């Protein structure tokens, strides 16, 4: 499949996902009713459902899914490791520890911004910690150390998290588990605007790094000969991709597999030129999460499924099929 075909296909899927997310939901509404609500006609209740519940939710799914997938692509390029994903540098561990800590302290029932703020702070703490360790030797950022430090810091945060949970009551444990499985139920225009504030500029910044990341995939030394400011690129890519992840995780909890599977899937189809891989990963990740969220809130309506369950259940088989086909083609 050519790059152009894939681009067109992904854009179509993203638009279909967006429309499906607005037209379908736990409450069956007819097409004409939704169109009326979109145009500002009809009852104020339906207007709310469409404009203030469904629309912000699909937009948030696009932003978070896109951000996670692109961050994953960047981490895979930066760390030159196919297992890299947005949470690999301890970000989810830090975010989850922050979130569960305020839950266990009973602070979350006070105001609604405490939880996202705490998880964002936890993620930032993990990011800084890992960064300090990886750049301790000299001013250079060693990606091998970065990866190791990330995994270890993540494990440490998970231990703290488990300790907090062991000391907490059943109710906190339940809320914490729900949070770590991820959900877009908190989507509102306010959440969307906050996440967009982080995601849009960082996405543009990462796109600007695409060419340098391409050079670095050959090797850091070669890249510096070819004129890339390797240290600057590494720090930028690490910091910016981490921020995207932290903003996403603060808004929706930990949503796994999008950042691992989507960039690999795109790479399997179009190759690893980051100039195409990064934007297409964004579109594909956004489309994927929008559709996954649609399944999450309609499959067992009125109950909602954790979105992490869908991203893994649907994403993994889809990815394996793609992987198998590509391997076979290479052999044949």
């Amino acid at each position, binding site marked *: 499949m050519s790059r152009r075909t894939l681009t067109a296909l992904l854009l179509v899927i993203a638009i279909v996902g967006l429309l499906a997310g607005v037209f379908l939901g736990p409450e069956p509404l007819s097409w004409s009713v939704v169109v009326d609500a979109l145009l500002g006609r009809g009852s104020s209740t*339906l207007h709310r459902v469409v404009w203030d519940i469904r629309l912000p939710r699909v937009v948030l799914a696009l932003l978070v899914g896109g951000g996670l997938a692109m961050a994953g692509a960047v981490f895979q390029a930066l760390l030159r490791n196919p297992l890299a994903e947005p949470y690999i540098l301890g970000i989810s561990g830090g975010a989850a520890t922050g979130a569960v800590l305020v839950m266990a302290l009973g602070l979350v029932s006070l105001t609604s911004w405490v939880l996202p703020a705490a998880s964002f702070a936890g993620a930032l703490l993990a990011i800084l910690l890992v960064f300090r360790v990886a750049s301790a030797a000299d001013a250079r950022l060693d990606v091998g150390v970065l990866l190791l430090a990330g995994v270890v810091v993540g494990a440490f945060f998970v231990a703290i998290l488990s300790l907090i949970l062991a000391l907490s009551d059943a109710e906190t444990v339940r809320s914490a588990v729900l949070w770590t499985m991820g959900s877009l139920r908190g989507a509102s225009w306010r959440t969307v605007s906050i996440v967009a504030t982080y995601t849009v500029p960082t996405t543009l910044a990462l796109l600007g790094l695409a060419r340098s990341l391409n050079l670095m995939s050959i090797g850091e030394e070669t890249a510096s000969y070819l004129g890339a400011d390797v240290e600057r690129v590494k720090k930028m890519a690490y910091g910016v991709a981490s921020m995207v992840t932290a903003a996403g995780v603060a808004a929706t909890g930990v949503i796994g597999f999008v950042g691992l599977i989507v960039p690999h899937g795109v790479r399997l189809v179009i190759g690893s030129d980051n100039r195409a891989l990064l934007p297409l990963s964004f579109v594909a990740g956004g489309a994927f999460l929008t559709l996954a969220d649609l399944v999450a809130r309609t499959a067992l309506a009125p109950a909602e499924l954790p979105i992490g369950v869908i991203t893994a259940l649907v994403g993994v088989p889809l990815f394996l099929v793609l992987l198998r086909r590509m391997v076979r083609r290479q052999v044949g």
Partner: protein
Amino acid sequence: MRRNLLGLPAVLFTLACSGAAPEPQAEAANPDHPPDGFPVVVVDAAGVEHRFERPPSRIISLVPSATETLLALGVGPSLVARTDFDTAAAVAHLPSVGGGIDPSLELLVVHEPDLIIHFLGPNSAGTANRFAEFGIPSLAIRPDGIDDVRRIIQLFGRVTGRAALADSLVRTIDATIRHVAEAVRGRPPVRVAFLLGGDAPYAAGPGSYVDQLLTLAGGQNVFADLGQLYAQVSLESLVVRQIDVLLLPEGAKPPPGVDRTVRFVPESIQFPGPRLGEATLALAKILHPAAFP
């Protein structure tokens, strides 16, 4: 643990009186002027003040025990939806909005409720803010102990304009509790544990609703030293501690290797609601059969 740290004393349920007299202005001319006793101002478990101009007519309760209280107050016809966890037959015909802690916002909104009752939990502020954003009045409740049950009944009574009925409901409960107390007076407390069943059973700890019921029913909770309302206990402690009666909800699996007198009680006994009096009586009859000839 979180309760202590939160310092959320039960006082938060204090029903702020409607205090300031309703301003007798434009509303007087209004044909549908507020019914007797309204407007009503109450403070919910989150410490938020709510003002009701008239009794709500489209209520959604996200807490099953609160649903039972509303039914007991006779406002069943005003309920417009239920959760997946409601067991009361009177609401079985209503559409569900999903779970009580994680309901579908969309389904809540389309029912156009004018009151939502929700649980004050570790992560309920976000939900409550969304209700406020959509202009839907909501009350946070936290039924932890029997005092909370009384307060919630009275809170709902005021909000729904049925304060007298609520008072009489509380009086009936208190009369049953007094009756039980008199019956078990002077009898040595029965050492009892209430478990939720399973291989690593959860036990009711001190201050929990069940613990309070057990005490009222002439029992002594052998797990009064747990640090939490409900916590896992070891099989070893079940074997070692002197337990006269082991209580389990119906359908629960007794822990393996524990040969104690096991008695099953209706699951509803652990839900802090209007059946508080009945639950106390049922427990007392199990613990002190001789006291109720």
